[in-house]
């Protein structure tokens, strides 16, 4: 399993290293010297810029050599740090043209065991337009994979969305259900109907399921704990599915306590049927994007839960 996963990853990167051009990954702010520079000057620059080598260019910006940190160390070792680099620099320089894919840069870097490659304007030119290192390549690959991941995410979101005109047409439609107190057999009907309604609209399966769960729990609450009430479901102007559950009382004395998972006032009879686990309200809260619960010991309890439908523009 692990193996297959890593292979898939490599396939994507493999594609990318053939697709991405060197010019899109390289560093364009070029640090370079001419042949009259001394090793000490270069050493100071390398240190200041935290880099490990610089190309040596002539006035035409053509490459004539390269000085790496190893060359500087040798210069210190053999006591010619204050001399000009012209006679000591590495003159056999490997380069890559900017229009090649980064795979050629990777090959060159690996083949010659070097850390950086000056990039030429074109295959036959010696004019340097940038420099590329393995970290430039990794950077670019990360950005590309990030972009691909974001695109996939966007497409996923789009898949979940309803067309705007469908939402508009549904705005006026209100689904209303009366729920009787203590009527177990018919409880669950509203939730089933609402699920079918949103499924019919073409809402995403997960969103539909969340709406149905909220309706079910609200419906069961009215049935188990109240004297009866109503469930009203509609789509509001902000394109949320809005579930309003209202009952005739007796009301919840302590809302915070009622929202505590596991807390229940259900009777033994109710619990024997598998209800009254003290999870109804916490479930509603978890599955809703917005949740509001108001209760009065005089006028009863009102619950409003909203689930974002997400609308395709």
């Amino acid at each position: 399993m692990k193996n297959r996963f890593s292979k898939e990853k490599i396939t994507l990167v493999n594609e990318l290293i053939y697709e991405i051009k060197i010019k899109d990954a390289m560093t364009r702010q070029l640090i370079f010297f001419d042949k009259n520079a001394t090793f000490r000057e270069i050493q100071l620059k390398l240190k200041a810029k935290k880099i490990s080598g610089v190309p040596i260019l002539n006035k035409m910006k053509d490459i004539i050599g390269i000085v790496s940190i190893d060359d500087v160390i040798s210069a210190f070792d053999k006591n010619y740090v204050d001399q000009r680099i012209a006679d000591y620099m590495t003159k056999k320089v490997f380069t890559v043209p900017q229009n090649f894919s980064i795979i050629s840069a990777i090959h060159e870097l690996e083949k010659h065991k070097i850390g950086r490659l000056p990039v030429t304007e074109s295959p036959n030119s010696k004019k340097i337009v940038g420099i590329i290192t393995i970290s430039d390549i990794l950077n670019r690959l990360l950005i590309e994979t990030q972009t691909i991941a974001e695109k996939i995410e966007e497409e996923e979101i789009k898949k979940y969305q309803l067309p705007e005109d469908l939402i508009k047409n549904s705005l006026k439609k209100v689904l209303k259900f009366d729920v009787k107190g203590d009527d177990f057999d018919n409880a669950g009907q509203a939730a089933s109907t609402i699920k079918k309604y949103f499924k019919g609209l073409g809402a995403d399966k997960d969103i539909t399921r969340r709406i149905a769960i909220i309706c079910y729990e609200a419906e069961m609450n009215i049935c188990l704990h109240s004297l009866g009430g109503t469930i009203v479901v509609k789509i509001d102007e902000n394109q949320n599915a809005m579930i309003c559950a209202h009952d005739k009382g007796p009301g919840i004395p302590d809302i915070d306590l009622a929202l505590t998972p596991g807390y229940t006032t259900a009777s033994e009879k109710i619990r024997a049927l598998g209800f009254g686990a003290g999870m109804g309200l916490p479930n509603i809260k978890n599955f809703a994007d917005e949740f509001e619960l108001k209760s009065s010991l005089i006028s009863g309890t009102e619950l409003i839960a909203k689930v974002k439908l997400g609308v395709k523009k």
Partner: protein
Amino acid sequence: MKLSKIVDVCHLEKIVFGTDCEISNGYCGDLMSDVMANARTNSIWITIQAHKNSIAVAIIKDIKAIVFTNNVPVSQEMIDKAEEEEIAIFITGKDSFTVSGEIYSLMEDKTAKD
């Protein structure tokens, strides 16, 4: 895994069995809100709660099949509702622990071979 395979291997008694659908998950629980919160889609659900509300929970959660354990009595009303909603229901004399274990081993074995 095909539902028929689970039914055959675990010797479940068929009460309602329409299409032989694909089962990819399972859940065992007798608290409606727990099942509501945690069961996954295309599940087989093992429970002792045999009443019409069990069918409602199954519909909402896209549970494809319910196994009632300990030979709990099943009402005609519930059977009618299950038929109407195309939820498969089965009954067994075994307890929930045993049936869950059997189905789990069967599905894990299948997954491992895949």
